[in-house]
């Protein structure tokens, strides 16, 4: 490790981040030339991302001492503090690895004439990346907030890059507003955290001793603020609006990377900056997380827009991660460090996995969008024949996000379940009763995720094309394929060598909980608690599966005569078989709609039996809109109308105000 960037990781990272910004600036030289911006700068950006990941990994070695750096910027008495420790290292690694894939894909993705000019887009894109990296590295409240809001701002501009479309503007507005509210609450959280001594560096906060009341306030503010960014229920509403509105690489970054910064923030504040809190912190967090997960997946199942579907699925995954964090906090409050470490590891690894497969899927939808110009599931289908590459790589992502062995999604869910199963040791009967239900919720969510993903993949790529023009769809370009393949490879590798991910997480858990889940012996085993309790080997599973399949294949080939006829499928006795006979997206989601009816606000339009042109329409709404947000908006409007009474244009009345103000204030003095 004498190699220079690893000897001085922080300066190296700063340089790389600066390189991102420079690349963004360079884009403005010839903002209209896609060749220059996309084909030239974005691949470089991807290289930088790889560099970031490489340096970050070095921070995950066992026995790595946190590095601190102070830049001569920022407030006069609060210069920018940066710190690279295991936690930030882990999230930087996530950022770098997934970011590289996305950048490569984006290099092939961006075209001219789509809203903002490529150069500007490139600038916002790289500022977005850089700000996320800074969020993770920040070691004082000011720099953190600065990077945090810059992140929100740049992503806002990326979301609204096609600002001519009304609902994209709306999505952008909601997004920025929620982001701002969340940021304010985080800011106040820091305001509470410094605990009397006015130094706002994280180091000072670690040292500060808070009264229980202030600690509770700070935690709730943090949970709300970071939850608003992560998309926790009920402050999730911006997410399904903003993610579909953005260009696909941006959706991938927001879903895959930006949401993770919220997880990072919550971990940093609740487990690093603050001391161990009361058990209800963990419980509340866990319950909110679980409900969010269930909520997200149920809504994902009934979506008809492929990107909205993925957005809701992001809500689900975030919910699972937060639930794991909550479990970790819970265990921590009972000083069960090993359990805390296990839950935390599950959270971290799931965050990493989600970054990989969610980016992969969003990018795939991007390719589909470019190939077909369709986002509506009802107008897609059968693309596996026209874009085999995307289909194949998307399949990996689909299986991974569905949590199927031997891919990575399963690993983290497995760890999460193991963590939930270890809770009966908690010395608190009430929690003992609740947590198994949590395990049940996780199981249900995971199973529903499978349902959702079958719908996603099946409706887009399988079956017959639902529209004629889909047959002209073309496969993605080389750069896009590389990007997708990179992420898919990540999904497979982590699935097959879970121990690697576990080791990476271990250094974080050691730093935050003081414990680490034990190695499962060799590299292809994980047995977090003990081999007797549970063990899993993705590699052997894959090997076994492939082996059996191969053997069966060979045997069949040996004994089977191998005659295969290609014929039109059976048309069930009709005269012909049209694509419209397949399930629509709505149709596929119908069971969920029936079973989870209370979740939704459904408006149906059922045609009359004697209708000449029968038309069936269904709209499914999120209840939170009417339950929470509509009333708030209405109240603000009413108040806005109310205050207007104060200003009716009568000069005499205005003078009266001054007069009364004078009198009232005088009353105070005498």
């Amino acid at each position, binding site marked *: 490790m004498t190699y220079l960037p690893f000897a001085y990781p922080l300066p190296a990272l700063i340089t790389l981040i600066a390189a991102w910004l420079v690349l963004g600036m360079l884009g403005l030289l010839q903002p209209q030339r896609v060749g220059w911006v996309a084909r030239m700068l974005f691949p470089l950006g991807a290289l930088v991302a790889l560099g970031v990941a490489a340096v970050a990994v070095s921070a995950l070695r066992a026995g790595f001492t946190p590095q601190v750096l102070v830049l001569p910027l920022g407030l006069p008495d609060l210069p920018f503090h940066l710190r690279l420790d295991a936690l930030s290292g882990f999230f930087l690694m996530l950022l770098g690895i997934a970011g590289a894939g996305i950048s490569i894909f984006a290099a092939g993705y961006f075209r001219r004439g789509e809203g903002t000019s490529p150069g500007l887009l490139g600038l916002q894109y790289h500022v977005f990346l850089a700000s996320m990296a800074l969020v993770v590295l920040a070691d004082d409240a000011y720099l953190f907030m600065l990077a945090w809001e810059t992140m929100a701002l740049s992503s806002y501009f990326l979301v609204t890059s096609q600002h001519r479309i009304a609902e994209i503007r709306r999505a952008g507005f909601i997004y920025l507003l929620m982001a701002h509210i969340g940021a304010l609450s985080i800011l106040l959280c820091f305001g509470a955290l410094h605990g009397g001594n006015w130094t706002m560096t994280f180091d000072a906060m670690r040292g500060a001793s808070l009264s229980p009341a202030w600690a509770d306030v700070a935690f709730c503010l943090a949970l709300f603020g970071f939850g608003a960014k992560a998309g926790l229920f009920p402050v999730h509403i911006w997410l399904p609006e903003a993610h579909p509105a953005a260009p696909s690489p941006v959706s991938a970054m927001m879903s895959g990377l930006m949401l993770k910064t919220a997880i990072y923030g919550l971990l940093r504040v609740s487990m690093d900056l603050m001391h161990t809190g009361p058990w209800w912190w963990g419980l509340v967090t866990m319950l909110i997380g679980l409900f969010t997960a269930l909520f997200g997946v149920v809504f994902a199942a009934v979506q008809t827009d492929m990107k909205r579907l993925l957005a809701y699925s992001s809500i689900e995954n975030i919910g699972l991660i937060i639930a794991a964090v909550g479990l970790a906090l819970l265990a921590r409050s009972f000083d069960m460090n090993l359990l805390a470490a296990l839950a935390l590891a599950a959270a971290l690894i799931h965050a990493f996995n989600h970054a990989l497969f969610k980016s992969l899927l969003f990018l795939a939808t991007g390719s589909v969008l470019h190939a077909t110009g369709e986002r509506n599931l009802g107008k897609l289908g059968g693309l596996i024949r026209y874009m085999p590459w995307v289909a194949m790589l998307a399949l990996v992502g689909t299986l991974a996000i569905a949590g199927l062995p031997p891919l990575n999604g399963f690993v983290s869910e497995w760890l999460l379940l193991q963590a939930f199963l270890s809770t009966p040791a908690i010395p608190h009967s009430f929690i003992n009763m609740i947590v198994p239900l949590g395990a049940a919720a996780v199981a249900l969510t995971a199973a529903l995720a499978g349902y959702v993903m079958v719908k996603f993949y099946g409706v887009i790529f399988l079956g017959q094309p639902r529209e004629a023009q889909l047959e002209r769809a073309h496969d993605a370009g080389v750069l896009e394929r590389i990007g997708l393949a990179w992420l898919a490879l990540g999904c497979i590798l982590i699935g097959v060598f879970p121990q690697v991910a576990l080791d990476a997480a271990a250094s974080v858990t050691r730093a935050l909980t003081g414990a680490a889940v034990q190695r499962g012996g060799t590299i292809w085993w994980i047995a977090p608690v003990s081999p007797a309790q549970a063990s899993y080997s993705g590699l052997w599973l894959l090997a076994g599966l492939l082996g059996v399949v191969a053997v069966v294949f060979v045997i069949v080939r040996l004994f089977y005569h191998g005659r295969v006829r290609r014929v039109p499928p059976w048309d069930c006795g009709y005269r012909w078989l049209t694509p419209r006979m397949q399930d629509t997206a709505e149709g596929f989601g119908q069971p969920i709609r029936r079973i989870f009816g209370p979740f939704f606000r459904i408006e149906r339009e059922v045609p009359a039996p004697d209708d000449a042109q029968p038309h069936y329409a269904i709209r499914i709404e999120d209840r939170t809109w009417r339950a929470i947000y509509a009333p708030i908006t209405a109240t603000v409007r009413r108040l806005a109308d109310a*205050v*207007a009474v*104060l*200003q*009716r*244009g*009568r*000069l*005499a009345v205005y*003078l*009266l105000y001054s*007069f009364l103000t004078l*009198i009232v204030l*005088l009353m105070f003095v*005498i």
Partner: protein
Amino acid sequence: MHMPSLATQFLHVLAAGLLMISFAMLAQRRIRRLIVLLAWQGAMLSASTLLVAITAHQSHLYYSAALTLALKVIVLPWILMRLMKRLGIAGDIEPLVNISTLLLVGLALVIFAFGLAQPISALATTVTRQALGIALAVILLAFLMIIARRKAVTQVIGILALENGLFFAATSATYGMPMVVELGIALDLLVGVFVFGIFFFHIREQFDSLDLHHFEALKED
């Protein structure tokens, strides 16, 4: 210091006069009469200033008195009169709804003002400290008048009355402000009246009347 009681009594008389005039202005409907009252107020003001100057041997108050006389008794009223004539509204009558209430409110204000002025009078070292309460009352009454009036001109007159109150307060509480300040104030006052004058014409040509009920276009509707 020794204090000729007679002068003080004179001062108090003048102060009472100022207060009376303020009430009169509050109730006065005719604009020409208002201007006359304003001039009278100015006269009393300068007289009182002169009196203070004599009794307290404050040389610079002589200038102040002269200034007041020139400005408030002669120049401003004259300008206003000319304006009224030019605008042809000298004889106008401004409708005032129930004056009695207005006067009652005025009375309340006077009480409030006197109460407020107590500690200050206690502190002040001038021969005229008791008059401060009256000065404050004059100010508040002028304020009330501005609020109650509906015509541009009368509002201006109200502001000028307010200025008079302020001058009286200054002289009675502190033997007047430093000269430079007094000059500055006077200058501002003069310019202000000119500006008002200009405005009257703009308003007239835009709204062809000086009633302020036109002035309700800018509002939160």
